[in-house]
């Protein structure tokens, strides 16, 4: 029934996606450098993208493929804005350590 079953099983793709996502989460949580944290976010987004295309391929549905483009677009915009913020933060605070940037509170 599924095309994937004739080659690499679906599970593998999903496991790879989950592993990438977990790596992204862990990196986001433990890394201090803001740029690394940012890269971790990209990693999570792409892990999700991988599962999207996997399912799209599995079910032969084009929606998942289209959604990946949306995610990529958002990721690109986010990269632009996020890097700009990082530069601005570095200019004012002279540091990129995440735990030093704790102004997001009352």
């Amino acid at each position, binding site marked *: 029934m599924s095309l994937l079953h004739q080659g690499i099983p679906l599970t593998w793709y999903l496991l790879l996606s989950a592993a990438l996502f977990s790596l992204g989460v862990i990196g986001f949580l433990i890394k201090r450098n803001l740029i690394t944290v940012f890269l971790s976010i990209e990693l999570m987004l792409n892990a999700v993208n991988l599962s999207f295309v996997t399912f799209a391929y599995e079910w032969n549905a084009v929606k998942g493929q289209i959604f990946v483009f949306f995610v990529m677009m958002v990721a690109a915009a986010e990269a632009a804005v996020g890097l700009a913020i990082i530069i601005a933060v570095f200019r004012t605070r002279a540091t990129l350590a995440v735990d030093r940037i704790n102004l997001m509170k*009352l």
Partner: protein
Amino acid sequence: MNESLQLWLVPLLPFAGFLLNGIVGSRLPRRLVTAIALLAPLGSLALVLNAAAATMISAATSCQGCGSVAAVTLPYTETWRHPWLAIGPIHAEFSIVLDQLSMVMLLVVTGVGFLIHVYSVGYMKEDKGYARYFGYLNLFLFFMTVLVLAGNVLLMFVGWEGVGLASYLLIGFWFEKKSAAEAGKKAFVVNRIGDFGFLIGIFLLLENFGTFSFYQMRVSLGMNTTWHGGVLTAICLCLLVGAAGKSAQLPLYVWLPDAMEGPTPVSALIHAATMVTAGVYMIARTHFLFDRSPFALSTVAIVGAATAFFAATMGLAQNDIKRVLAYSTISQLGYMFLACGVAAYSAAIFHLVTHAFFKALLFLAAGSVIHAMGGEQDMRKMGGLREKLPVTFWTMTAAVFAIGGFPPLAGFFSKDAILYTAFLQGTLGKVLWFVGLVTALLTALYMFRLWYMTFFGELRTQDAHPHESPWSMRGPMVILALLCICGGWIGIDRFTAYLAPPVGLHRTISSGSGGLEIGLSILAVLMALEGWLIADKYYRRKPERPAQLAAAMPGAYKLLANKYYVDEIYGALIVKPLVAISKYFLGWVVDGAIVGGTAWLLAGMANLSGMILQRWQSGNLRSYAAWLALGGAALLLFVLLFGSPHAWGITFFHEETIHTVEHITVMHFGQAGR
């Protein structure tokens, strides 16, 4: 046949005057303010006189084709096309009804009203609130004419409340003076008590008659001849409470003496001649209800007689010239209630008219005296003003003899009619007659006391330089004096015959005899003469005697001088407990503990939860991310353990997607947790 009399303009002209003088009056030149203030009531008076002439013609010449003269038959009605209130089958309209009763009342209100407006021009000349004063005075005339002309009880209530408002505004006219502001407040609050009774009466009327219209009530009562007492008594007693509040009867009279804080012409117009008689007018207007309830009628009579007597005794020991007149007004209103209570409504209205003349004149003369004395109101500092103020003296004399009940002045005829009718009403009537007779003596006593203390002897102060008042003040006084002298000559019989259509004939007018009436009249005049002689002895020939008498009977004197301590008793029994309840129960318990407590509790809860929840808001990016990850993990775990959100009736995924997720879950993780 009925040509329009344009009676709706009678209230509206003064209202226009009120709007003009009230809004822009302070910026207009004084002459223009005066012109507006005088033309408005003059226009009303002209319309009323025109209406009177039209109705008189039709009454006198009941022939066909009497030429081109416009003839109008009473009752005459003007109704505004659009209904005012339409609640289901109940309609209240802006309808004004002119019958003999409202005609008499209108003539008094606009006639005396106009005279007092003229007087006020002289009296208030120096006042900085000149325009405001005339604005209020016109407003009063507006509401009073609405009250008088109202064809239904609801519209009457509008006028009723309105005159209360005008009264409040004018009592507190000099609001910088604390006592004046307090007096206005007192009048308003006491009147609210009465109005509460009136309102309940109106609701009961609506409940039982299904209409507000006086005419329809009268018709439906006329068709139901067996309906007596019961709810009618309740209605009448409620109306009596309202009337007692407005007309200053026991036990609600306490506001009227304090109302003397207002300018004197106001006391003359509102608190003597017109507004305070509204209660009498209301009872006469609803007399068909009272006629069916003997109990309510007796209550009215007893309240009236008691008020007449007690107020007269209180008037004996007052030294403020206006307060003497205030108690005299209460006492005379008591006479009118007594007349209503013995179903002699035309006698009550007759006394209302003559009282309007002589009491308005007494107040105007008192105002002239106060004006001459430079604002002094204490009679103990007056005296010997006879030569200095001749016009005031002679007009006042006419009024004093009129109120004293000396023939042939106005007061004699009306008071005599009341006492005579009371005498014919069985045992209770005889008791009330006797009270009225004693009151007649007291009336003469306190009036001649005022007369002697003011105009005779020597001036007892050096501060004042008395001078006669200007013509704008003397003119109205002279006209009123003529009315005092001639007003009663119309005679009670002719008056009763005129008023018969709206209020009916006296129930027992024919059961007396001419000899009895003359005998009672002579007795009443003798009593008045006795009062005069006592006053003459005590206040002219032996002016040191009253003080000796007061010293001999300190208890009785103090009781009278302090007005039976009624204000103090009300203060202790009603005001203080009310204030205490308001302050401690309502203020502390209800407002402080319950309302305030709830508010504080809510605020405290919000504060506490904020204090707890703000710990999540650490500002640390990593902790946010950790909570986010934990939350996502928890949600995922929840779905895996307890099934899909779909099974819980929650659909935030697309149907297809959920099937997909379920499928995958089942396929790859088995049935675990299901």
